[in-house]
């Protein structure tokens, strides 16, 4: 028993070393996309590195934000999600809202909202501690990140180039995500890789 007790501190130390793992910095275009494992709204964990070999779009979302509503009420985001899915792109919606914020929706409710909107992401992920958001320096909702099959960020920024809440501005705007995917899938480098995202702040 005494031997066992003396070994415990060693286990503890190893445990603590595991606990103090590195956190990776943000993800401007050109950098490797930080890996994460987050639970989807159905509870199943989704790991980014499992999507290697496919193009991935990360969409930061918060149903309570008027800028997000602009793109969902107009069905713009859903259309983009379906279109990208059809091209073999994995679309992951991420909600980094802190559970103590009043925009927070429980996973089941968040899942229902996405379904009710007719959204078609591969999964809607709950980032309640905000660690994935911080790892990507997600500042606003919406904020869009496109990741290459090798795991590199090729676009990080706003969804389009018209900062407003009115759906009328969607039609004439340049959709940076669609453009990035068009260029990438055609084997070309992304011409506009980094823009200032617009939207409400992510509610960490």
């Amino acid at each position: 028993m005494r031997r066992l007790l003396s070994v415990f501190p060693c286990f503890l130390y190893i445990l603590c070393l595991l606990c103090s793992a590195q956190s990776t910095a943000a993800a401007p275009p050109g950098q490797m996309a930080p890996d994460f494992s987050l639970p989807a709204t159905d509870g199943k964990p989704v790991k980014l590195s499992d999507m290697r070999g496919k193009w991935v779009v990360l969409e930061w979302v918060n149903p309570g934000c008027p800028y997000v509503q602009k793109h969902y009420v107009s069905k713009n985001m859903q259309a983009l999600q379906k279109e990208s899915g059809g091209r073999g792109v994995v679309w992951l919606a991420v909600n980094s809202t802190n559970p103590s914020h009043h925009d927070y929706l429980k996973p089941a409710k968040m899942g229902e909202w996405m379904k009710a909107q007719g959204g078609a992401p591969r999964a809607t992920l709950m980032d309640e501690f905000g660690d994935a958001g911080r790892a990507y320096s997600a500042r606003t909702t919406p904020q869009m990140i496109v990741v290459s099959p090798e795991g590199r960020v090729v676009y990080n920024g706003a969804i389009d180039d018209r900062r407003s809440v009115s759906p009328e501005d969607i039609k004439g705007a340049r959709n940076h995500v669609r453009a990035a995917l068009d260029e990438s899938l055609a084997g070309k480098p992304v011409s506009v890789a980094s823009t200032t995202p617009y939207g409400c702040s992510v509610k960490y």
Partner: protein
Amino acid sequence: MKAMIRTLCLAAAALLTAPCGAAPVRTDNVEAELVARDLALAPGRSAVVGLRLKHDPQWHTYWINPGDSGMPTTLQWKLPPGTRAGPIQWPAPKRIPLPPMMNHGYEGEIVLPVEITLPADWPAGQQARLAARAEWLICKDVCIPGGAELTLDMPVLAANSAPDPKWKALFDAAFAAMPGGKVPGAEATTAGGVITLKLAGVKPLAGREAYVLAGVEGLVESAAPQIIRQEGDTTVITLAVTSNLSYTEPRISGIAVGFAERALSFEGPLVGKLTAGKGMDDPAAKGVPARPAAGSAGAEDLSLVLALLFAFGGGLILNLMPCVFPILSLKVLGFARGGGTVAMRANGLSFAAGVVLSFLALAGVLIALRAAGEAVGWGFQLQSPPVVTSLALLFFALGLNLSGVFEFQSLLPQSLASATLKHPTADAFLSGVLAAVIASPCTAPFMGAALGYAVMQGPWAALAVFGALGAGMAAPYVLLAWFPAWLKRLPRPGPWLARFKQFLAFPMYATVVWLAWVLSLQVGPDSIIWLGAAMVLIGMGAWMISQAGGAVWRLGAVAAIACGLVAAWPGNEVAADPSSTRQNGWVAWAESDIGALNAAGTPVFVDFTAAWCVTCQVNKKVVLETRPVREAFAAKSVRLMRADWTRRDPAITAALNAFGRNGVPVYVLYAPGKAPVILPEILSERIIIDALKAL
């Protein structure tokens, strides 16, 4: 009749053509209005008008560079022909932190001035109607896009007119907040995601916080700390480039605050290759330090089986903790008394059931509270003064019982007393419950990671881990109850038993002293007098009970005990006295300072502790405050921070959660340029010294 109608029509016409100056438009959380600085405009001369915004408390709109989110206020003018309007002249904004991000904007009542020039050939006496569509984004913790169609009708006079007394103060404040001059020389270079800005001929004012705000979006990381140093009469400021770089001009401009009474504007070339910075999470560049990522190793990688094993081990160890040991003593006495084999096994299982079910109930409460959005962590029950008071009084009473002041049998009427004796099983169950409640905050080694894992993995995992903890704690007694042969190794009852029982009162009293200390920290020193008075009254009540007297004695006893309970009921928690946390070189934990300290090369050591956590107090006494350790800290100029979780503190709970922990102690060493290192829960001088050597 005709005369009356004519009068009415004239009156109506007069009302319609009266110079109405716009009534303020009240929309979501703000009042908006076009106002003019002067009482009238003049043809061919420029005058100052402005957009007046009166924000509801805590709501804000944005500056031209709104920061990490938001949108600057805009004005689209509809002006009479030949009239020109200049751009918005922006007063210096307020920095509005939104950790881990930063916005720049305005709160309260402000005006955004605009210069208007009427054409020189403006017909004399004709009013000018200025109209604009104003659009903004107004936010508190949520954002509401807003806008209004505003008009302002101004008389036009030949000569300059006097300022409008209604708005003079507002315009004066706006102009005072605008940059009052230019920095004599500004230039910047950039490399590796960092901008080095040199402001020549300026120095930060003594005692003022000096910083710069970029006047453009998509260039500077707004929340990152700015490192300022002096090179002769030039101030050199290091800024982080934003990770969402969208600005590509070879120029930099903005305002510098804290270098003169008024803000200064600066503008200059930006030389070098602009590359994106590391963003919000760069430990060297941001205001809030990095935490181990949720998906990284640590609490989440702990498989359920491993967590259960650790929980079981933790439970076993809990039996030895000073706050549990006195309760343990009661059970040892119970076993030593012997009884039938079946009865003993039943008691053992009953005790185990009491412990396990109590831990499950605590887990259930924790899960329910978290689901309800409360920021609670393990040990929360001892953060509540009424709970601490109740436990202190209960343990005092139990100590009196052990000391022989009264017996439990004399507490109850004869029939009930024998009933209790007939159900030692129930008695065992209750002992188990008590043991669990008092053991909970003594977060034994192992329990930190296992509990953190449990709570984050969801209700079933949490219940399983807490159940394993309870099983571990009860295991020794179940074993003893099952194998009475082992009990035979224990000495037989004899005179030694009475002495042992009386001796065990002392750990009980020691626990009461510790709880009294915890209470004094929570409610203030005055609580001691009330708790002490209650203990005296309860002691007297206990003595009165033991005097085999009649109803009068019993009544007196009840009265004494009741008075004691009322006297002891604690008041509200007293706000923490900041000076009290500055002891022996330890300062109060301030998470936002850690990044800045690291950026300046100072390591930070944070001790997450609580008064009711015995492991924490032991580590403090035996390791943290010894001479070798203090000297090691001083040698590396480590800033020592104490995060005191004795009272409920959601900020500390959130910080603990981010480390995958749900209880204290947690020891974190933040080294400049490295990820934070979490040290073990049982410290030793060697561990600290080795960790510091690695800096």
